[in-house]
C-alpha cells in the first residue's frame, strides 16, 4: 500500500510543478526556471520547520511567497527576451539557484546532531511528518488537499477573464497590446503565480522526501515541469494532471523494467507528441469530447 501512497505523493507534487509551468506557458513563455522556484520553496520551508520549528502550513506559505517574490524579480528581465532566448535565460537562472544551494551552509545544533542545509551534502533530516506522527496516508491526503486547491483555483482563474487575457498574450502580443493589455503586468503576474505554486510544490516535496540536495533540482526537473503542460495541452489544468500521471505513473513506474532506457523513451515521446499532437495530448477538441462524455453542457 505504501507504494501507492508514495506514488500519489510524487504525482501530487509533480502536478503542482506542472501547474506552475502551465500558468507561465499560457502567456507564451517557455520557462525552465520552475525547478529553481521549486528548490527555493523546498529549502526555505525545510529550514522553517527544522531550524525555526514552525508548523508546516505557515512554513509552506511563507516559502511559496518567497518563491513568488523571486519569480517576480526574474519576470521583469525575462520580459525582454522571447522564445529560445527566454529558455536559455530561465535555464541559467534555475542552474544559478541550484548552485546557490550547492554552496549554502547553515547548520545549528539540535540535541546532539547538526541540522540544516550543508552544501553538496544536502539538507537531511527534514522530519516534520514522522516527528509529528503523520502516516504515509496522512501525508498523501495533505498533499492532495493542496493539489486540489491549486487546481480549483487555476481552473477558476482560467474561466475568469484572467484566463482569456493570459491566452490572448500567449497568442499574439501585438494584438493584445492593441486592445489595451499591459504586457508587463500580465507576464510578470503569470510568472509570480507560477513561482508561488512551484514554491508550494517544493515545500511539500522537501517534507515528504525528508532529504533534499541540489541535484534534485537540476535540468531534468525543469524539463519535466515544462513537459507536463506541453504534453497535457493548454486547454485546461486537467491536462497537466493527466500528463503527470502518464509520465510519472506509466512511463517511470510501469516501464521500470526497461531501466534507464525509459529516459530515451521519454525524449522520443516529447518529440512525437509535439509532431503528432502539437496542442498537447488533450487539446481543446479532446477536452470537449471528454466533457460531453461526462454529460456537461458545452460552455
Amino acid at each position, binding site marked *: 500500500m505504501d507504494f501507492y501512497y508514495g506514488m500519489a505523493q510524487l504525482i501530487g507534487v509533480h502536478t503542482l510543478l506542472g501547474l506552475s509551468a502551465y500558468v507561465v506557458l499560457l502567456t507564451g513563455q517557455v520557462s525552465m526556471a520552475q525547478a529553481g522556484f521549486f528548490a527555493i520553496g523546498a529549502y526555505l520551508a525545510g529550514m522553517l520547520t527544522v531550524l525555526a520549528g514552525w508548523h508546516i502550513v505557515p512554513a509552506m506559505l511563507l516559502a511559496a511567497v518567497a518563491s513568488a517574490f523571486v519569480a517576480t524579480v526574474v519576470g521583469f528581465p525575462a520580459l525582454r527576451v522571447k522564445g529560445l532566448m527566454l529558455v536559455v535565460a530561465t535555464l541559467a537562472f534555475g542552474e544559478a539557484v541550484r548552485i546557490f544551494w550547492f554552496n549554502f551552509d547553515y547548520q545549528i545544533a539540535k540535541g546532539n546532531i547538526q541540522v540544516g542545509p550543508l552544501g553538496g551534502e544536502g539538507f537531511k533530516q527534514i522530519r516534520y511528518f514522522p516527528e509529528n506522527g503523520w502516516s504515509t496516508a496522512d501525508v498523501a491526503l495533505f498533499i492532495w488537499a493542496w493539489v486540489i486547491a491549486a487546481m480549483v483555483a487555476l481552473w477558476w482563474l482560467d474561466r*475568469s*477573464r484572467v484566463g*482569456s487575457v493570459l491566452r490572448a498574450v500567449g*497568442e*499574439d502580443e501585438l494584438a493584445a497590446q492593441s*486592445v*489595451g493589455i499591459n504586457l508587463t503586468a500580465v507576464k510578470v503576474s503569470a510568472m509570480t503565480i507560477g513561482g508561488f505554486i512551484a514554491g508550494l510544490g517544493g515545500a511539500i516535496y522537501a517534507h515528504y522526501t525528508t532529504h533534499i540536495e541540489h541535484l534534485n533540482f537540476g535540468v531534468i526537473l525543469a524539463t519535466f515541469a515544462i513537459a507536463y503542460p506541453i504534453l497535457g495541452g493548454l486547454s485546461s489544468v486537467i491536462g497537466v494532471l493527466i500528463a503527470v500521471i502518464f509520465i510519472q505513473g506509466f512511463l517511470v513506474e510501469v516501464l521500470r523494467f526497461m531501466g534507464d532506457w525509459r529516459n530515451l523513451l521519454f525524449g522520443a515521446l516529447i518529440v512525437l507528441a509535439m509532431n503528432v499532437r502539437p496542442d498537447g495530448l488533450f487539446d481543446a477538441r479532446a477536452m470537449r469530447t471528454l466533457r460531453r462524455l461526462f454529460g456537461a453542457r458545452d460552455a
Partner: protein
Amino acid sequence: MLELHSLSKHFGGVRAVDDLSLTVNQGEIFGLIGPNGSGKSTTVNLICGVFPTTSGAVVFEGQDITDAASHRVVAAGIGRTFQNIRLFGDLTVWQNLWVAQNSVEERETGWFARWLGGQRRGRDYAGELLKFAGLADRANELARNLAFGEQRRLEMARALAARPKLLLLDEPAAGMNAEEVGQLATRIRALREHGMTILLVEHVMELVMGVTDRIAVLNFGQKIAEGAPAEIQSDPAVRTAYLGTADA
C-alpha cells in the same frame, strides 16, 4: 482631436514616414491613402506606439502620446484594427471582446474586481457589438473558425470593445467583395452617427471616396495632397503618384 506634428520614421536609410503633419477633427472620417509602401500602416503603428518614432510628435486630445506604450494609447481612447487580421484564434468570439473590455473597466473599477469578475459583466455591451458586427449567433465559436469577412468584422468589434474615441482602421476592405465593402461603408457611417472619429487607411477607392470627409495622400512617406474627396480625385499630383499617369 488627433494631431501629428512633423512625424518621421526612418528604417535605416528608408524614410517610411517623412515629416508628416495632419489633423483629424472630432467626429470626422478621415482617409489616409497612398500607393503600397507609402507609409500608411507605418503611420498607424507610430500612433499606436508599436515602434518608436524617429522624430515628431503625436498629440491626442491635447495630450502628448508620442512613443507611449500601446496599452496606454488604448487607454487614452484610440482603438485599431490590423491590415492582416490579428485575432486571438483560440479564444471564442465573445472572449475576444471580453479581453478587449479589460482596459475600459480598468478606468472604472479596481483591477481585482475587474479580473475576477464573472463572465456576465460587460456582456450587454459585448452583445450589442456582436449584433453590430453581425456575429450575434457566432458568440461561442472559436475566432479561428470564422470566415474571412466575419474575422474582419470581429476585429472591428474587438477594437470597439475598448470604447475608443478614435478608431484607426488599417485597410479594413482588403480582400472583401463589392457587397461586403458596401456593408462596411454602412457600418463606418453608423459609427460616426454614434460620435466616433475614424481614421481610415485604405486602398479600395470606392470606399475611401464614398465615406470620408477629408483625405490625405501619402507618397514615399510624405503628404502630397490633402482635401475633400472631390479635390483629391482631380488633383494632378495625386493622379500622377497614386492613380497612375496612364489614365490621366
